[in-house]
């Protein structure tokens, strides 16, 4: 890879990241279709593509492309049209810096943990823009809920990640995963729980899907969207699951550490991330939606103290056993 000219390498890496960005969310989406169906005693899609409906999401994509792209008459046109991309692109950037193995990484950045957290925080602006520009009360309510939720859960998430970074002594994802050892499973357990819960909330996945709550506010900020723009929001959600799952795998499950990690490291990371994604789906199927006040209470009364406790625990561990 180092023999190639730098520009070609950049292009190749970008194409690879884009391909992963388009394929992995579909994989997670299809897994969700099937796992959720079987958890509810159903079969899920069976026709598209022939074998157990494997091409269902491709068919969905084709359908979305064919649909009319509607912008409401009283909407703020440009903000409305820009919002899906603002929601989508941060996850693309985040996916680019998450390493699958020390060598398989889109862009090796020094402080990649901070970068991932920063761009994920930007994603919410897409939802806010969509909700406000739609000129729809439900959309605005959804955006408000989303913003309140994300501001609340950003803090425990950052604290949990800070604890891992403290334990590893680096802000680089590659460095963190290399510093990982199996003891972390116990040592960083509270932080892992906090991270998983906060990630679910950031993704607005059930049981934290208050901003979308279809039984209350239609579809939250995305109510007025159709066609490809709506598909972009959905893609952003599933890309978010991919990013969060891979991040969890790298931060708390040791990423590529496993048998034959010289050659199969990237596979281990993907597998661990996939497992986390299945857990995310499992939680969605099993638990009901939380109320807005319960949601805020969980963040401030439980997750933040837990994350602070984890931070203290990590600090003690680092000082006592450097």
């Amino acid at each position, binding site marked *: 890879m180092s023999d190639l000219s730098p520009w070609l390498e950049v292009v190749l890496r970008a194409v690879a990241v884009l391909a992963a960005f388009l394929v992995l969310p579909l994989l997670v989406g299809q897994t969700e279709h099937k796992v959720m169906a079987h958890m509810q005693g159903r079969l899920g899609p069976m026709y598209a593509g022939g074998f157990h409906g494997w091409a269902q999401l491709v068919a969905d994509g084709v359908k979305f492309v064919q649909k009319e792209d509607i912008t409401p008459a009283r909407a703020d046109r440009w903000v409305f049209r820009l919002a899906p991309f603002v929601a989508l692109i941060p996850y693309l950037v985040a996916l680019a810096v998450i390493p699958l193995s020390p060598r398989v990484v889109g862009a090796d950045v020094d402080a990649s943990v901070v970068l991932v957290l920063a761009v994920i925080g930007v994603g919410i602006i897409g939802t806010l823009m969509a909700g406000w520009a739609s000129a729809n009360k439900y959309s605005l309510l959804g955006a408000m809920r989303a913003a309140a939720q994300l501001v609340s859960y*950003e803090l425990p998430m950052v604290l949990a990640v800070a604890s891992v970074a403290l334990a590893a002594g680096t802000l680089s994802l590659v460095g963190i995963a290399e510093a990982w050892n199996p003891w972390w499973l116990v040592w960083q357990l509270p932080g892992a729980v906090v991270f998983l819960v906060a990630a679910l909330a950031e993704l607005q996945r059930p049981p934290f899907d208050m901003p979308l709550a279809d039984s209350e506010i239609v579809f939250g900020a995305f109510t007025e969207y159709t066609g490809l723009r709506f598909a972009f929001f959905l893609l952003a959600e599933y890309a978010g699951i991919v990013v969060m799952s891979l991040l969890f795998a790298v931060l708390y499950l040791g990423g590529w550490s496993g048998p034959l990690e010289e050659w199969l490291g990237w596979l281990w990371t993907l597998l661990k991330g996939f497992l986390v994604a299945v857990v995310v789906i499992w939680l969605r199927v099993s638990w009901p939606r939380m109320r807005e006040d319960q949601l805020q209470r969980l963040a401030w009364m439980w997750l933040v103290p837990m994350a602070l406790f984890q931070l203290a625990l990590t600090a003690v561990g680092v000082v006592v056993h450097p």
Partner: protein
Amino acid sequence: MTTRDLVFTAVGVVTALSALLSVTTKHVVHAALWLLVSLGSLAGAYLVLGQELVGLVQLLVYVGAIVVLVLFALMLTRAPIGPHAEIDTPWWQRVAGALLGAATTVLLGSLLLPLFSGATADLDTPTTTTPEVAQAVFGTWVWPFELLSVLLLVALIGAFAVSRLVLHREGAEDRRPVTAGAPAGERR
């Protein structure tokens, strides 16, 4: 003129233009969004200059949190779609604002340009990496840092106290006084 120069110029132009748009637009939410672009491209400028950590923290704090809060507050109160008549300013205020802005720019330019015009830094091997920034903040500058955090804490507690005071004056019977740190209604 290297690639870095080009990128830096582009990012700088975007920053300045969006900042200008953010103060001249008559749409409240658009102003906040332009501010967002401005702060985001400022982070880009930091990145181009090799200060990765500063750029990312700028993104995390300003774009990801502060502007989100600003947008949140705007949308929660009153932010109609379309131009907002109430934020229109008289012509003399605009002239005064433009003059002040120009004066500040000239002042800063005339001060900083002679000071740092000769200074060079090798951006490909940055000297201020993340560990060094950490060393500086928690070593050399630890007392100012702690002082600042205490100041922020005081401001936080003050904000809570003020909000509680307002609630008391309105005479909400069922709301018991709550100490700082927990939002109203969260304690049993």
